[in-house]
């Protein structure tokens, strides 16, 4: 089986990689591009640890084939901070102790950021349902939900200040 050449954009940078037709985007990110921040918890789209944003849509990268990334924009956990400046969601996860083992954290941060990009003022219930595709076994979700609500409040404040 000959490999396919895929040209894509990851976190704003042009990327090319070779893969088999049935390689998942998650494996391409982790094995071909060395971006191991996206995790495989299940390989079946049930845990959200591999969450990335593909052309603005939140997806489980374990359910996307790598060749589907051709010509598209991928955002991963590695691109969330701007240089050494953490995104408010990342900072609030740290301030609230919203991680214990940290394995699910990249997926949660991707999903939370995707939520706040489209809904700057989510209710607790909206946060909980939006994050229902991400499994965490350590925290019981309490501190994660608080961190996301707090990040939303800070982002709203930033926008008001900017206006």
């Amino acid at each position, binding site marked *: 089986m000959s490999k396919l050449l895929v040209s894509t954009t990851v976190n704003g940078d042009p990327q090319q990689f070779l893969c088999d037709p049935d390689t998942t985007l998650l494996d391409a990110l982790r094995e071909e591009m060395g971006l191991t921040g996206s995790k495989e918890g299940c390989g*079946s789209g049930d845990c959200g640890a591999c969450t990335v944003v593909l052309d603005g849509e939140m997806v489980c990268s374990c359910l996307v084939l790598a060749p589907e990334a051709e010509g598209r924009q991928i955002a991963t956990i590695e691109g969330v901070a701007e240089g050494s400046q953490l995104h408010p969601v990342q*900072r609030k996860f740290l301030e609230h*102790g919203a991680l214990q083992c*940290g*394995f699910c954290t990249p997926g949660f941060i991707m999903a939370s950021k995707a939520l706040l990009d489209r809904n700057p003022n989510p209710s607790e219930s909206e946060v909980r349902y939006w994050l229902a595709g991400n499994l965490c076994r350590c925290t019981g979700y309490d501190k994660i939900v608080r961190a996301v609500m707090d990040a939303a409040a800070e982002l709203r404040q930033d926008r008001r200040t900017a206006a």
Partner: protein
Amino acid sequence: MNAPKQNFRLVGTRPVRPDGIDKVTGKAIYGPDYVAAGMLQGAVLRSPHPHAKIRGIDTKRAEALPGVKAVVTGADFPQAGDKMVSGGEGGAANLRYVTQKCMAIGKVFYEGQAVAAVAATSRAIADEALKLIEVDYEVLPHVISIEDAFRDDAPPLHDDVFTQGLAEKPEKPSNRSMRFAIERGDAASAIAGAAAIFSGHFTLQPVHQGYIEPHACVASWNADGQGQVWCSSQGHFAIRSMTAGVLGIGVADIRVQPLEIGGGFGGKTTIYLEPVAMLLSKKSGRPVRLAMRRDDVFRSTGPAPGAEIDITLAAAADGTLVGAEIELKYHGGAFPGANEVYSGVGTGLGHYKVPNASIVGWNVLSNIPTMHAYRAPGAPQINFAVESAMDELAHKLGIDPIDLRLKNIVRPGDIGGSGVPLGAIGYAESLEAAKAHPHYSALLGPNQGRGVACGAWGNYGGASTAAVSLGEDGSVLVTEGSPDIGGSRASMAIMTAETLGIPYEKVRVTIADTSSIGFSMVTGGSRVTFATGKAVVQATQSVIAILKDRAAKLLGVPAEEVEWVDGAAVHGDQSLTLAQLAAKAGTSGGPISAEAMVDPHDWLPGFGVHICDTEVDNETGQVMLKRYTVVQDVGRAIHADYVEGQMQGGAVQGIGWALNEAYVYTGAGKLDNAGFLDYRMPVASDMPMIDTVMVEVPNPAHPYGVKGVGEVPIVPPLAAVGNSVSAATGLRMTELPITPDRVYGLLRAAE
């Protein structure tokens, strides 16, 4: 309620954890992330049968596939025989069974047991090669449930397993691998004369720890006999001991490098992959990665036992418990050695004073994976029965459930579940705090119920080594051997900085590999902040002694007159700061560092009280969790966020056990829900906020009053949820999980 607040600068605060940025930016390297140069990818062939003899394995076609570099089977493993090795939680493990949890030898005992493994230049080729391995099985009859396996005429899994713990060795082998009992007083007579008696039978299914990171490792074993393993685990020293034992080599020939661990909860205190990867590496001459997929994790690692429990609990008219008879049968899985029965029997009534009690436990083997530790192993199951029975007695006697418990609890000076007198425990304080909590008196809506349950866990001490050294700029390096599974780097840094009187940011903590620090037991038993914390503080105190000595030299005064105050050596009006002393280390006697080894036995048990509100949909049987409060004696919280996090996370795992989670087997003995879609753990939208109340009754034997907190929170939730649903429906919940179809059936049957 709480001990008077001591004036700490850092203990009890909530600074950002040292490993935080790596973990929110995706930089942290976990088990499946590690890459070694020239690494091959491995894959494991697993048995499709729950019970079968292996008549032969033909690997020739797999070996001939281009890209395949090595194939191993059970024949490649040295047969250790019955030999104990210091393992994970619960101490020793029998190498004969540890080996077979990694690779079947002659026989498979459960679906998913490894029968062969391949290393190849890609995972795709390795997976392809598995299809070319021909295994000739002779399928044998299997048993799955406790009931089927326990029967006198059940086919025994092992012809050399005879029930241990009986007065006389039985004549024939059976699946009852062990009987363990605690008897005191005359339970039968006490129950016969009691004012209120509850008898019931409770059933639970096996559940999985559910860590999100599947097991993974990279191994490299050279021709000179020296090997390295990179893996995430709850204790790399235990991984080293067991891997060396299985391979029949010295522990110094394996260096285990700890990677970040993505959850464990007890399940990562043993080995499944490491010796297999080592043998593949030896055969191929290259490093080999083995990584489980989620279905492998469910089918072939160690879940927590399901249980069948009969209980009779009796009280006098004033609520005083007079007698208890409990018989519990726990799943053991395929091989003997699971020690959940000991802890179940030991902790079941450990939080109450019951003068007359008979608690009999059986470990029952069947064709499912060997059970392994899961957070307070063995305690949640029996606690479900005990706390449900307490709830029934409270109803029968018309006594408030918390008052009934206050009447019967163990208090300081009483004998605990393990037969050890209890010291400064905060159980009564926790119950009082629960009773005073607004949740306990809040109004309930229609179809809602409130349940209360208490639970205890013994916690542990165990061996730990830590080293503290000074950088020449006054920074402090802590080196320890306990994997950080939930923020313990932060608590070590807090305790070190507090002891030295310096800023938190001046301390950096490293989890060192097995060749870089002395032995440390696993991160388990709620022991790390307690035991490793003791080692870290002791080493820090030794460093302070050296610093005072150096200051005395530099100031020309007697060492015994120097005091250490707020990060400086002080003599009268002269002082030298830590940074000044560090800068002068080279000219005042050389490097400054100290190591401490501890094996403390003065840990204290933990106690929790949980309050749960549920709402039951009468039309569908759906149970919704409305409100949940966790009250716990935590000793003293070093990093409050991560103490609360343990309470919240443990509670939600217990809630999952109560409402959703169960291993479901087909008639053919195969696991029917080996994935996160069908093995449904709680998600964010299932849960409310989990309120926490940290009751702080410090342990005087720890420099900062620490008690273990990690395991207690999973003990009460099963009964707290069950009691809550029982209150909402008026029907006693005796079987977990409390799924909509089960509740619906109970509701319709009651109409």
